[in-house]
């Protein structure tokens, strides 16, 4: 088993945090895992993305020219990375920030109203974690419990933050799917 996931969004949306939490969770489950932030752009700001590989064997390359899954947090990344998916691949996108997309027949796209849901639990900044929860439910690549543990480990002392973050994961996980996935 080798799964390659690409998280993409704009600079402040916590894309790298999502990736880190997922990779860390994979480590907790004793998978081989790699995390690679995109650092192609010389200057910060604009978009951010990272690739996570999870496997039960050694991972050759942490690069995913053709990922299995894309999780897009905003419109530009949804638009650009949907084209990179494997045929048969799946994309989750933040339907609150993503407008109309040109459809590709050979992939499945799942909308997640992540901002709305995050707002619902009083923390719009946790939209990324809603997406992560939904992603786990969709793919079953890891146990959701491992995500919780990972969040705890990574945010550590900040109890409040851990709580709200995991709450967001849970909302994403339990609520998925949120709508019609085919585009």
């Amino acid at each position, binding site marked *: 088993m080798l799964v390659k996931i690409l998280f993409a969004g*704009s600079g402040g949306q916590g894309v790298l945090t999502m990736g880190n939490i997922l990779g860390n969770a994979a480590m907790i489950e004793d998978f081989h895992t790699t995390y690679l932030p995109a650092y192609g752009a010389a200057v910060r700001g604009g978009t951010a993305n990272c690739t996570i590989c999870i496997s039960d064997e050694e991972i050759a390359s942490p690069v995913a020219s053709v990922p299995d899954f894309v999780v897009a947090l905003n419109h*530009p990344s949804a638009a650009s990375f949907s084209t990179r998916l494997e045929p048969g691949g799946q994309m989750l996108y933040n339907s609150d920030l993503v*407008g109309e997309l040109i459809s590709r027949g050979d992939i499945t796209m799942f909308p997640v109203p992540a901002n709305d849901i995050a707002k619902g639990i009083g923390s719009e900044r946790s939209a990324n974690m809603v997406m992560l929860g939904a992603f786990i439910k969709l793919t079953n690549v890891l146990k959701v419990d491992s995500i919780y543990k990972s969040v705890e480990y990574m945010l550590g002392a900040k109890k409040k933050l851990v709580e709200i973050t995991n709450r967001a994961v849970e909302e994403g996980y339990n609520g998925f799917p949120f709508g019609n996935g085919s585009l």
Partner: protein
Amino acid sequence: MAKTKCRVVVRSEYCKGCNLCIAYCKKGVLAPSEGLNKAGYHYATPDDEKECTGCRVCVLVCPEVAIEVYGE
């Protein structure tokens, strides 16, 4: 004073939504867009109802050469 009314145009795909023009336009002509441009920014949009004096302060502060001001 404002005999000739001027008009400001933002090349929205070049705008990065830094809001500097908005901050420095004394006449409040410019405001952030509701929607996003392709790059994902809330670009500046002129309110043609507001009185643009053609002072070009917005042009002066714009880091992206994204603004055009038209007048007589």
